[in-house]
């Protein structure tokens, strides 16, 4: 009797925890990019743009999910170029890749050119598109799924304690 109840409680707690931690989708609008940079000032982070309709993005999300597991202290920021009405599919996909806790945004303005410009005026819109921000926010841009080894090398290097001159 008692163990069964306890198991139920644990299960409920797990589900409640999962629900509470389901990725909160923030609307990505004009000014959001500036907000993201400001929120991560002085810290390295990975910024990845993706879409549900892009098959290579699934490889990318799998890589980022694995990276997040290896380096829980690394901030991963995801921006979906889909729409707010795809919210359910977006959160389900991120959860499947172990990215439920990542900071997640979704395009919330049909004027996508403006949003793309604020992310990077040089970006042609191809997906996936990844930006590796180091501690000083010097940025390395990459189109297409990132090689796992490259991503790992960058993570280790950028998370290493800052060398004092």
């Amino acid at each position, binding site marked *: 009797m008692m163990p069964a109840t306890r198991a139920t409680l644990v299960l409920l707690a797990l589900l409640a925890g999962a629900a509470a931690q389901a990725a909160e989708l923030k609307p990505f609008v004009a000014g959001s990019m500036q907000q993201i940079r400001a929120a991560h000032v002085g810290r390295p982070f990975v910024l990845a743009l993706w879409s549900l309709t892009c098959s290579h993005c699934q490889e990318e999300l799998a890589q980022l999910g694995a990276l997040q597991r290896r380096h829980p202290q690394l901030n991963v920021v995801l921006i979906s170029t889909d729409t707010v009405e795809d919210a359910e599919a977006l959160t389900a996909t991120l959860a499947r890749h172990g990215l439920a806790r990542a900071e997640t945004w979704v395009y919330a303005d049909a004027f996508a050119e403006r949003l793309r410009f604020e992310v990077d005026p040089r970006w042609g*819109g191809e997906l996936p598109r990844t930006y590796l921000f180091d501690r000083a926010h010097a940025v390395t841009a990459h189109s297409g799924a990132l090689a796992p080894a490259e991503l790992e090398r960058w993570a280790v290097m950028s998370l290493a304690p800052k060398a004092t001159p």
Partner: protein
Amino acid sequence: MKRRALLLGLAVGWLAPAWAAHEHGAPGQPRDLKGVWEKSLARPALAVGVAFDARGRLWRARVENRQLWISRSDDAGKTFTSPVAVNREPERIAADGENWPKLAFGKNGELYVSWTQSLDQPFSGNVRFARSFDDGRSFGTPLTVNDNTDIISHRFDSLLVDGRGRVWLAWLDKRDASAARQRGERYTGAALYYAVSDDRGVSFAPNRKLADHSCECCRIALARDADGTPVAFWRHVFGRNTRDHALARLDNAAALQRVSHEQWAVDACPHHGPALGISAGGVLHLAWYSGAEKRRGLFYAFSRDRGQTFSAPLAFGHPDAQAGHPQVLALGVRVALAWKEFDGQQTVIRVQQSHDDGRTFTQPVTLATSTSASDHPLLVSDGTRVLLSWNSAAEGHRLVPLSGDSP
């Protein structure tokens, strides 16, 4: 807080196999992609097709409520006739950036239209075609031109009438990719297929393949060579994932010719197809986009030997302003380039022109602007003037004469 994170870790680890077990469709695709696809098809279509006929009348094709609507303007776009529906049976019609409805004209007043029908499965479609023999007053029952009718991708149609009045359609086709996957083999990209009709579009000959391994989601540029033969220009996948450009004549004679060498090696879909214009003198004018890190932006080249050799690519447009989606139109020795940029506040259509067959170009000028979502630009000519055709959500469809052209 720490405890919650731990619980979450457990929850995710525990739930993950359940998600995986319910996985359907192609590997790597989100399980709810079908809903996403359906929602995307329900959004209003911005893509508009326009073309001038031999009598200088402008025809327009646009999509509304699952129907393709054709109207005509006898005053270069100032006023239009009330639109006529092409397909009586409503169907889902793709009309976004790289897919827009096409119009072409036969030698005896025939009006031809083609479009991509979106099917139930994500990214699947059929190439559709209809004709009118009564000056656009009515259209015959639409045909599906692809003779493989699996629910896979046959999309990104391109339409052309050759020098003999034959009707050509070219498109990107995933039948070989699909067959390879069923055999457990790898197939890079899509294939470029085409079909030709020599009975005014009443029927089409069996589909033929022009090339294996095209890029999957970039429009095909088709133009008529000086001898009347159709020429295709498209983004190809060279080697494992180098997405540069190729050219081929649709006369079964010539092999694929590589045009660009930016070496854009990328596992991504650019959604960014090229443009081709051929002058009456037979000079090929080509424009394309590359995202290669060291060669990013728009490029222009010409060929004076029917695509055997090409001029050194000329970079145009502002790479720091998203320059993309180029158009090229050749009219005698005049060449017009148009493309899209974003200046930080608004989308702008920029234009450069050459009056010496592409050897030199004027400085770029801004022809139109928008502060809303917009279609790619199109250039059209009535044989004398060149006009920009551009649709945007806030401003609507516009026809703007290029500088030097009368309104």
